[in-house]
C-alpha cells in the first residue's frame, strides 16, 4: 500500500494529473487554471505538463466555460471545468440546468455529458460572500446532474478521478477551507465507490450527517459530546446527489436521532432532503425529529461574522441536546 501524506489541494492536483495521464480526452478548462495554476493552485503545473490545448485558460465567462464544455463533451472529450468560486457559478446556471443536465435525455441517450464542474464551495476562509457560498442544493435538485463533495485528501484524490471517469455530469464540490489540511492518501486503491457515504466515527446516540467542510466540525463535536457522555455517529455523505440513504438509514435505525450539518440556508436544502428522506425511511425508529444545523436564511455574511453563521461545534452540540431531549 502506497500511502502518502498530502494536502487536499495536492491530492486534487495529483488526481487530475492521473486522470489526464489515463485518458487523453480529459481537458481542464477555466479561468486562470493554466499559467497561474488556478487561484487555489489546484491545477498547478498541469498546463506545463499537458499543454495549452488540454489545460485551457479561458476568457472570463462562466456560461461559456460550461457551454463550450458541453460541445467538447458532445465531441467525445471529458472536460473538467473549474468555476473559480461558488458564487460565480450562477452565470453558468442556465447551461448547467438547461443543457448539461438534460442533453443526455434530450438526445435519447446519444450524447454523453461526461463533464465535471469543479466548484470550490462553503466558507471559512475569511473571504467575501461570493467566495463562501454553498449552492449545492440548486444542482442536487436538477435531474440529470450528480453532486459530490470530498472531505479528506484521500477522497479528493480518488473522487476527482472517479468523477472524471463517470459518464454523467458531476458537480464536484470542494471544501475550500480544507484545501490545506493534510491527510493520508492511498494512491493505489480507491477506498470506496463515488456515491457511497461513509461512517467516519461510529456512535450510538445520535446520527450526525454532513459533507465537505462540515465533516471535520462534526468529528470535533463528537469528541466534545463523548466527554459529556453522548455518543455521536458521524457520517460523511460524500455524494450529495444521489444520497446514500442506505448507509444513513442503517445508522439512524440504531440511534433514532438525526442531526444534519451543512453551510447552506436550511430551506429546501440538502439537509431538508436528508431529513425528509430519512424520516420517510426510518419513521418508526425515530426518537426525535431530525434537525438541521446550517447557515441561516440570510446572504452569506461579512466574513468577520462567518463563524457565527457556519455550523460550529457548539451549534451541533446544541442540536444534539435538542434531539436527546425529546421523549422517546
Amino acid at each position, binding site marked *: 500500500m502506497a500511502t502518502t501524506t498530502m494536502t487536499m489541494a495536492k491530492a486534487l492536483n495529483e488526481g487530475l494529473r492521473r486522470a489526464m495521464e489515463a485518458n487523453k480526452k480529459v481537458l481542464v478548462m477555466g479561468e486562470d487554471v493554466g499559467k497561474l495554476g488556478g487561484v487555489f493552485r489546484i491545477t498547478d503545473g498541469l498546463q506545463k505538463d499537458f499543454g495549452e490545448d488540454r489545460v485551457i485558460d479561458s476568457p472570463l465567462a462562466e456560461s461559456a466555460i460550461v457551454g463550450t464544455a458541453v460541445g467538447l463533451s458532445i465531441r467525445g472529450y471529458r472536460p473538467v471545468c473549474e468555476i473559480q468560486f461558488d458564487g460565480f457559478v450562477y452565470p453558468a446556471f442556465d447551461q448547467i440546468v438547461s443543457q448539461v443536465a438534460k442533453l443526455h435525455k434530450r438526445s435519447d441517450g446519444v450524447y454523453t455529458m461526461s463533464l465535471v464542474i469543479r466548484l470550490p464551495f462553503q466558507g471559512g476562509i475569511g473571504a467575501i460572500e461570493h467566495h463562501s457560498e454553498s449552492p449545492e442544493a440548486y444542482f442536487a435538485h436538477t435531474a440529470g446532474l450528480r453532486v459530490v463533495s470530498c472531505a479528506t485528501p484521500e477522497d479528493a484524490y480518488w473522487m476527482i478521478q472517479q468523477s472524471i471517469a463517470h459518464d454523467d455530469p458531476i458537480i464536484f464540490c470542494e471544501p475550500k477551507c480544507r484545501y490545506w489540511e493534510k491527510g493520508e492518501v492511498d494512491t493505489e486503491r480507491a477506498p470506496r465507490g463515488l456515491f457511497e457515504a461513509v461512517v467516519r466515527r461510529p456512535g450510538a446516540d445520535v446520527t450526525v450527517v454532513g459533507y465537505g467542510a462540515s465533516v471535520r466540525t462534526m468529528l470535533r463535536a463528537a469528541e466534545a459530546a463523548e466527554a459529556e457522555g453522548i455518543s455521536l455517529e458521524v457520517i460523511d455523505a460524500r455524494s450529495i446527489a444521489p444520497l446514500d440513504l442506505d448507509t444513513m438509514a442503517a445508522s439512524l435505525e440504531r*440511534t433514532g436521532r438525526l442531526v444534519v450539518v451543512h453551510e447552506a440556508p436550511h430551506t429546501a436544502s440538502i439537509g431538508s432532503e436528508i431529513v425528509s428522506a430519512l424520516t420517510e425511511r426510518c*419513521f*418508526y425508529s425515530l426518537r426525535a425529529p431530525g434537525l438541521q444545523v446550517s447557515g441561516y436564511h440570510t446572504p452569506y455574511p461579512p466574513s468577520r461574522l462567518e463563524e457565527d453563521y457556519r455550523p460550529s461545534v457548539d451549534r451541533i452540540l446544541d442540536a444534539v441536546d435538542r434531539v436527546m431531549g425529546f*421523549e*422517546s
Partner: protein
Amino acid sequence: MSREVFLLPDVGEGLVEAEIVSWKVAVGDAVVLNQPLVDVETAKATVELPSPFAGTVVELHHAVGDVVEVHQPLVSIETDASAPAPAPAATPAEASPAVEPIEQTREAVLVGYGVGDEGAATRTRRRRGAPAPVAPAPVAREAAPALAPRSTPPVRLYAKQHGIDLAGVRGTGRDGLITRADVEALLVGAPTPAPSRPPVTGPATPTRFVGHDLAPWASGPEVERIPVRGVLRSMAEAMTQSAFSAPHAAVWVRVDATRTMELLASLKERPALAGVRLSPLAIVAMAVCDAARHFPGVNSSFDADQSEVVVRRVVNLGIAADTPRGLIVPNVKGADRLDLVGMARALNALVDTARAGTTAPNDMLGTTITITNVGPFNVDAAVPILPPGTGAIVAVGRVAPAPWVLDGAVVVRQVTELAMSFDHRQVDGALASRVLRHIADYLEDPGPRLIAG
C-alpha cells in the same frame, strides 16, 4: 363512405372557445384535405382552420357568430374512400371523429396542447399492490434488539404516558411495528405473554363486580361494558355528589385492639350470647355511637340550600356493605340506644338482609354517620368518601398481630387502624381528631365504656 366530425381543436391561442367568423364551405360542398373550412376568432387572433378530411360537407354545426367550445363538433364531412387513413380514435355513438384532437381533455392556455385533465377527484387506478392481509400475531416481548423500538411517535407517547416500556417489544404491525393496539394490550395485560413465561390466566371462577358475575380473566372478553344502573348508579351518583360537594379531610390512628379482641373472645363463650355473631365491628359501632354522644357535632350534615348545619341527636349508623348487588349503605336506626348485644343483632340482621338483596329502600335513608369495614379484605386502612348528607365516615382496617411499644418495650399486640373522613365544611380537624381518639380509646379498653354505655 363514412361520416367524420371535425372537433374544434385547441389552436393554442389561449382560450377555451372560439367564435365562428365565417364559413368558407357550405353543406354539399366537396372539400379536399387541408382546404380552409372556417375562420374562427379567439380573443387573441383569427385563425383559419384547414380540413382534416377530404369529402363532402354534410353539416355545419354552428352559424356565424356562434361561440364554440374547444373539442365541440364544428363540421361533419362525408369522406370518400380515397381520403387519407384517419387516425385511430374512439368511436362516439353517431359519428367517428377521424381526427380528434390529440388530447380531448385539455384546457387551453397560452402555448401547447393546453392543460391536461389531471384526473377526476376520484381514484381511477387500482391501488398499488397492497400487501395481503396478515393475521395479527400476538404481541411478544423478546430479548432487547439493537434497534430502537419501531413505532410511530404518537404511539410512543401513548406508551410513555401509560408507563409502558417498549424496549424489546415486538409489535403485531408490519415488520414488528408496535401499534397503539399493542400498547393497549400491554396496558391491560391482555394476551401478550412473553414466550419465556407461563401464560397467566387467573382463576377459572367468576368474580363479583358492581353486582355482576365477571367472567374469568382467561375466558372473558378483553373489554366488557357494564350498564350503570341500579346499585351501581346509586353508588356512582352518591360518590360523585359527595366528592364534589363536600370538601373531604381525613384523620387516622393506629389502635391496640388487643383488649377488644380478648373481650370478644370471652363473650363468645357465654351461653346467653349463643347465635349472636360478635365481631370487632360491633365494638366499633358502639364506640362510634359513644363518640357521637360525646361530640354530637360529628353526627351532623351540611345543608347548603338552607345555609344550615344539621346536627342530629340520634345515630342512624350506616354500614357500608359489600353485597352481591354491589356496595350499599343501609343503616341501623337509633343505634345510639342499643347495647352491645342489640347492636350485634342489628348488624347481623342488616348484613343478612343486604346479602340477601332484600334491603328495603327505607333502610338506606337517613344515615347520620357511617362505618366502612375493610378488615375482612385484609387491608389496614382506607380513606373513604362520605355518603351524601353525612358528616363523618369511619374506616376500620384488619386486626392483626403487630409490634407495639407498651411500657417502653416492644411487644406483639392485636393492632388495627382507624381512619375517619369528615366534611370539613362543619367538622374541623380538632373535632375530628378528638372523635377518632375517642373511638380509639374505646377500642383500646372497651369494657368500662360498654358498661358505662
